[in-house]
C-alpha cells in the first residue's frame, strides 16, 4: 500500500467512525394518494380512528396510471413548444379526504435553514408563478393565502386577490405532509392585464414565530399591459410531492369542460383500462397545456367489511392537448393498482371508478370486477 492509498484508507476509516445520527424512515403514510385504502362504510369515531391507522398498514404503493395516445374528435391541435412545463401543472383534486394529522418529523426552520426561489412563466391569461422553498433538515410552514407581490421598494402591488375556478377545486394539502422531505412548492396565478410597477419580489408567511415572513426575489414576466388593465392574484396550494405535483389553480376556462368515462364492462384487478372523454361545451377551444392538468384516479370496491378505495394519478402534460370548440377528445388511461387493495376485491363485484382534474366535475362510472 502506497502513501496515497494509506491516506485514502485512513480518511475513509476515520470518516466512517464519525458518529452520525441514523436517518429516520420517511413518513410513507404521506404517499397515501398513490395507493391507500379507507373503509368508507365506517362512520363516527370508528371512522376517525380508522382514518389515522389504516393507511399505515395498508399502503398499496406502486400504483400507477398512464395515458396512451389520446384520440381526438373531431380534431385536436397542439400548442407551441413554449407551453409551460410539468412544474407548472395543475394539481388534481383529492378524491378522498386527507387523513391525519401527522406530526412534523423535523424542527421548524429558521431563516438560515431555508433556500428559496420564485419565478413566473407566461400562460394563456397572464402568468403562473412557482415558489420553491427548501428547508435543510427542518420544516417549513407555508400559508399560501399570504402571497403578496412587492415592487422594488418593497411595497405591495395594487393587485386584487381573488378565487380561482371553484369547480372541483383542489383541496388544500396539509403543509406538514409537504414538509416531509424539506421542500415546499407554492403556486399562484397572476391573471388579466397589469400596467403598474414591476414585481420585484414575493412575500409569504412560511416560517413559525415572529420571523414568519420570507421575501423572495421574483424573476420572470408579468401579465401584459393593456387598456383598462385589471389583474388578479390567485394563490395556489402547497404541493405534497416534489417536484412533480403542481400547485397552480385551475384556469377558469376549464369550467367549460365536462368529463365522462366511456362505459366499461369488466375490469381486471391488476390494471383498470378505461377511456375518459373530455367535451368542450363552449365555442372556444380550451387548452390543457398552459398550464396542464394532473389527474387523480380512484377505484372503490366492496370487501368483506366495508368498501376499499385506492388512488393513483398521472399527468396530461406531455400530451399538449386542446379540446376543440364544441368538440371532444378521448383519453385512454390504464391505472394499475398493486398490493393489498385489489387482492381483496371480490371477482364479480362492482368497482366504482372516478377520474378528476381540477376545475372540471369528476367523471364516475361502475364496472364489474373480472374473475381471476
Amino acid at each position, binding site marked *: 500500500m502506497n502513501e496515497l492509498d494509506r491516506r485514502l484508507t485512513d480518511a475513509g476509516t476515520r470518516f466512517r467512525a464519525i458518529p452520525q445520527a441514523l436517518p429516520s424512515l420517511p413518513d410513507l403514510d404521506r404517499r397515501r394518494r398513490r395507493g391507500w385504502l379507507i373503509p368508507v362504510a365506517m362512520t363516527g369515531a370508528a371512522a376517525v380512528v380508522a382514518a389515522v391507522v389504516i393507511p399505515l398498514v395498508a399502503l398499496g404503493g406502486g400504483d400507477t396510471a398512464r395515458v396512451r395516445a389520446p384520440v381526438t374528435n373531431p380534431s385536436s391541435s397542439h400548442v407551441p413548444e413554449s407551453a409551460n412545463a410539468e412544474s407548472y401543472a395543475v394539481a388534481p383534486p383529492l378524491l378522498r379526504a386527507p387523513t391525519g394529522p401527522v406530526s412534523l418529523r423535523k424542527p421548524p426552520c429558521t431563516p438560515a435553514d431555508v*433556500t428559496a426561489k420564485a419565478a413566473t412563466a407566461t400562460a394563456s391569461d397572464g402568468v403562473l408563478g412557482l415558489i420553491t422553498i427548501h428547508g435543510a433538515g427542518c420544516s417549513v410552514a407555508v400559508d399560501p393565502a399570504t402571497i403578496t407581490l412587492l415592487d422594488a421598494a418593497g411595497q405591495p402591488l395594487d393587485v386584487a386577490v381573488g378565487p380561482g375556478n371553484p369547480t372541483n377545486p383542489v383541496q388544500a394539502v396539509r403543509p406538514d405532509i409537504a414538509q416531509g422531505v424539506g421542500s415546499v412548492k407554492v403556486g399562484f396565478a397572476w391573471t388579466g392585464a397589469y400596467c403598474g410597477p414591476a414585481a420585484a419580489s414575493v412575500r409569504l408567511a412560511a416560517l413559525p414565530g415572529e420571523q414568519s415572513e420570507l421575501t423572495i426575489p421574483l424573476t420572470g414576466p408579468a401579465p401584459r399591459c393593456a387598456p383598462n388593465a385589471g389583474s388578479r392574484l390567485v394563490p395556489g396550494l402547497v404541493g405534497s410531492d416534489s417536484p412533480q405535483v403542481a400547485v397552480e389553480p385551475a384556469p377558469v376556462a376549464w369550467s367549460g369542460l365536462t368529463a365522462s368515462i366511456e362505459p366499461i364492462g369488466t375490469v381486471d384487478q391488476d390494471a383498470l383500462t378505461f377511456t375518459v372523454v373530455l367535451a368542450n361545451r363552449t365555442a372556444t377551444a380550451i387548452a390543457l397545456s398552459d398550464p396542464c392538468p394532473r389527474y387523480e384516479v380512484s377505484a372503490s370496491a366492496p370487501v368483506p367489511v366495508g368498501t376499499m378505495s385506492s388512488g393513483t394519478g398521472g399527468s396530461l402534460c406531455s400530451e399538449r392537448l386542446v379540446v376543440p370548440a364544441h368538440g371532444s377528445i378521448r383519453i385512454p388511461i390504464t391505472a394499475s393498482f398493486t398490493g393489498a387493495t385489489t387482492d381483496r376485491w371480490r371477482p364479480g363485484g362492482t368497482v366504482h371508478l372516478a377520474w378528476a382534474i381540477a376545475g372540471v366535475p369528476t367523471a364516475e362510472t361502475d364496472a364489474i370486477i373480472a374473475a381471476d
Partner: protein
Amino acid sequence: MATDRAVPRDADEFGAWVRPHLMAMKHLAVRLAPTGDHDDIVQEALLRAWLRRSTFDPDRGSVQTWLLAIVTDRARRIRRRARSVLRLVDERNGSVAGAQPDPVDPALDIAVRQLPRRQRMVIELYYFLGLPVAECAAVLGIAEGTVKSTLSDARSRLRALLEVTE
C-alpha cells in the same frame, strides 16, 4: 420477513428491508451533499425506493447497492437544483445553513472533489464507504474492471493534485 428476494409490500416490510442500509446511505449522502442536504437526500432516496421498489432486481445487485445507486442519483439532482436556488442568509448572524462536518483530511477532501464525476464516485464508494470493487460496480452500473481502472486513474489524478510522490 423481507429479504433481498422478497420486495416489501407494505411500510413495515419496507422499513425492515432498508433499515440495515440506512447508515451506508447516510454516509454516501454526507460525502456527496454540497451544503448539508444529506438528510434530505436520504429521505428523498427512501421515498424513491419506496415508490420504485417493484423495480428492484436482486439478480442485478444487493438491496444496499440498489439503495446507494438511488442516493447517488438523488444527490446529483439536488446538487443541480441547488445551483439555481437563491441561498437566503440569516441577517442576524450572516450564516448560511447546512455546513458539512469538518473533513478528516481537508486537503484530500478538496482534491477528491476536483476529480471527474466517475473517478470521484469510485473513490467515495471504495474508500469512504468501504465497499468492495464488485459492489462499487453494481452501484455505478459499470464493470468491475472499469472500477479498477477508474480507481487507478483517480489515484493518479489525486497524486498530481496533492503533489504526492511515491
